[in-house]
């Protein structure tokens, strides 16, 4: 049996950043603010181009970011942010894409067409931050009970005492 040999750290930060800058131009994304934090690349892209960007990062032959590690929602009070953490098995490299989202009108394109595994990440962000993912096939609550009308991880969230009281459903009696 032939075992595939991986070239660990086949690329370095500078190479990835220069590659990304080139590739971003091809999909119409602005160059983005690249930054290094704890040895990881972060870059900001605009909300409109996020789906094309992720699709390009996955399908591009040089980059091959073929695995989505995590999608994280962040609340900065003035605006919301989503961080897509992508990983390339072939290059042993990861990149984090940030998208800034308006807090008053939070919505963004779903990337479930590109990464099927983004389904639950997006559902979780939707229920905890209230960010609407346009084009998501199954946008319903994942961890919270189905009847909630609040988003607990927002900074502005403050629950009323009546909401905390558990009301026993009568369906089993």
């Amino acid at each position, binding site marked *: 049996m032939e075992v595939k040999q991986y070239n660990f750290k086949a690329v370095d930060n500078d190479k990835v950043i220069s590659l990304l800058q080139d590739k971003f131009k091809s999909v119409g994304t602005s160059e983005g603010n690249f930054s290094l934090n704890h040895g990881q690349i972060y870059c900001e892209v605009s909300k409109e181009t996020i789906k094309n960007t992720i699709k390009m990062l996955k399908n591009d032959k040089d980059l091959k970011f073929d695995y989505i590690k995590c999608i994280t929602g962040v609340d900065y009070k003035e605006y919301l942010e989503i961080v897509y953490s992508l990983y390339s098995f072939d290059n042993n490299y990861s990149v984090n894409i940030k998208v800034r989202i308006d807090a008053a009108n939070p919505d963004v394109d779903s990337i479930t067409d590109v990464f099927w595994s983004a389904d639950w990440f997006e559902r979780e962000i939707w229920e905890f931050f209230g960010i609407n993912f346009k084009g998501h096939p199954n946008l319903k609550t994942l961890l919270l009970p189905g009847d909630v009308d609040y988003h607990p991880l927002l900074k502005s969230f403050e629950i009323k005492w009546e909401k905390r*009281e558990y009301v*026993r459903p009568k369906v*089993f009696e």
Partner: protein
Amino acid sequence: MGLERKKTLEDHLYLKDKFGKPNILTVSYDKIMNAARSRSIWYLTFGIACCAIEMMATGGSHYDLDRFGMFFRATPRQADLIIISGTITRKYAPVVQRVYMQMAEPRYVLAMGSCAITGGPFYDSYNVVQGIDKVIPVDVYVQGCPARPEALYCGLLKLKEIINRDSIVKKPVIVK
């Protein structure tokens, strides 16, 4: 050494004589039923959080609940007792209620640890029920975070006392 009287052959013959004959036991129905029931509390295989680890330790070979006639049962139909061993979230509470409703009466509930009693450290959370007694009626509360196996023992022996107080004459009170 030497304090115990050595059993002679006559002693053994006496015992054999006693149990060899057909014998009659005269006792009230409550007493014999409660004696049987309190010595065979079968509890549900139902672990929720870190208290469940202590519950498993209690059921395991070191603490050995089997010697009290208590066993894990994998189905609520055969279980007498449900040990609530962990935090009850709002999403999980209807599930617990459903499992409880599937158990045959008489059924008992033991709330183990501070989460099951009041919500514990997650009391102020948006998604945690403040105690399992908001969902189903509780017989015994065992405190601790998590409760030690010794504490669980104490609770189970208290439950044994509760069962021994039961009677078939009185109609059992069903809390709704």
